[in-house]
């Protein structure tokens, strides 16, 4: 079996562990005194972590030159969407139990929820267009659309930051990590632009001097 196929399977199983732990915890009654808060926090954590892991794929590929790693990207992105969906369902079903009026109030009145909802809709758009058929159909537009992940990562981090009443150190570390991940892309674009610039005509070796 190819290394990448094995790695993909291992990651698939590992990525389900946080969800499995929540289910086990629910049966054992170990999800703290406030299970809804706890489930909300854990699913949100993992949605964000998988978003960050997804953003690591391209830098690792560029740095190591190991191209097969790109085959993990869609699955990792979909796991971010998976946990974001659980996070959204925890809020809308467990917390508000389809109280649409209160949910609408929350989205309009609480900026961190506005950002959370916007992030979820962006991830939804990316998830539904993640199929190979969508990639073919959209062509260049697919690449442009999927740059939304950069914006989604920024709104997700802002959402995370605004939830707390005081700045949590963890959020600071994530901000540094996200800056590095997005900074890498800016640096890469600038670097490759310099490298692929065509040589000036004078040096093409064909021009004859009188």
């Amino acid at each position, binding site marked *: 079996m190819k290394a990448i196929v094995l790695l993909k399977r291992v990651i698939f199983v590992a990525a389900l562990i946080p969800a499995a732990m929540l289910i086990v915890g629910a049966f054992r009654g170990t999800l703290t*005194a406030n299970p*809804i808060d706890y489930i909300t926090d854990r699913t949100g954590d993992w949605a964000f972590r998988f978003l960050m892991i997804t953003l690591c794929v391209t830098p690792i590929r560029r740095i190591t030159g190991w191209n097969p790693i790109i085959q993990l990207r869609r699955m990792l992105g979909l796991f971010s969407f998976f946990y974001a969906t659980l996070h959204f369902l925890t809020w809308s079903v467990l917390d*508000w*139990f389809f*109280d649409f009026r*209160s949910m609408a*109030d*929350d989205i309009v*009145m*609480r*900026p*961190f929820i506005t950002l959370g909802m916007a992030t979820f809709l962006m991830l939804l758009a990316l998830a539904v267009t993640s199929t190979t058929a969508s990639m073919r159909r959209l062509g260049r537009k697919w690449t442009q659309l999927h740059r939304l992940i950069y914006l989604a990562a920024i709104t997700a981090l802002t959402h995370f930051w*605004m*939830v707390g*009443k*005081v700045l949590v150190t963890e959020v600071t570390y994530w901000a540094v990590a996200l800056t590095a991940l997005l900074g890498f892309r800016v640096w890469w674009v600038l670097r490759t632009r310099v490298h692929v610039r065509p040589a000036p005509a004078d040096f093409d070796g064909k021009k004859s001097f009188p």
Partner: protein
Amino acid sequence: MVIPWVGIPLKDVINTFQPTSQAKYVEFVTALNPAQMPAQTGRSLPWPYVEGLRMDEAMNPLSILAVGLYEETLPNQDGAPIRLVVPWKYGFKGIKSIVKIRFVDYQTKNTWQVMQPSEYGFFANVNPAVSHPRWSQASERRIGEFFKRKTLPFNGYADQVASMYGGMDLKKNY
């Protein structure tokens, strides 16, 4: 359910010390002991935690110094040995592990009021009409219940306490 706190009326404790008319407010201070409470070594809050009540609030028979709950001695994590419980400010003002009570003639600044004045004022009465950028007070979920219920003004104790705030704009004095 509503937590059955066990405690002593705060007014009985205050009366023991016979405060003069200069005592306008009561200030409470939490134990500072990072060896036992490791989070106090962090810089998340300016320790020790401080809370305050106006004298008439402190003298209201509903205000208690809790020493237990569910007919048990107060566990450490709930603020042993003594914590404040002010039912119409529930969720606020519940300072734990009190080691100091002072009578003062100025309105004290409680820790969260210092940290986040846009969300935490001095009075902190439960008020469903006051909404903050990060949270609403319009509804609540009681422990052991799945569905939320509408939160009542003064947490349902309006008859006993609303008269203390006559003429005050409680949206400004949140």
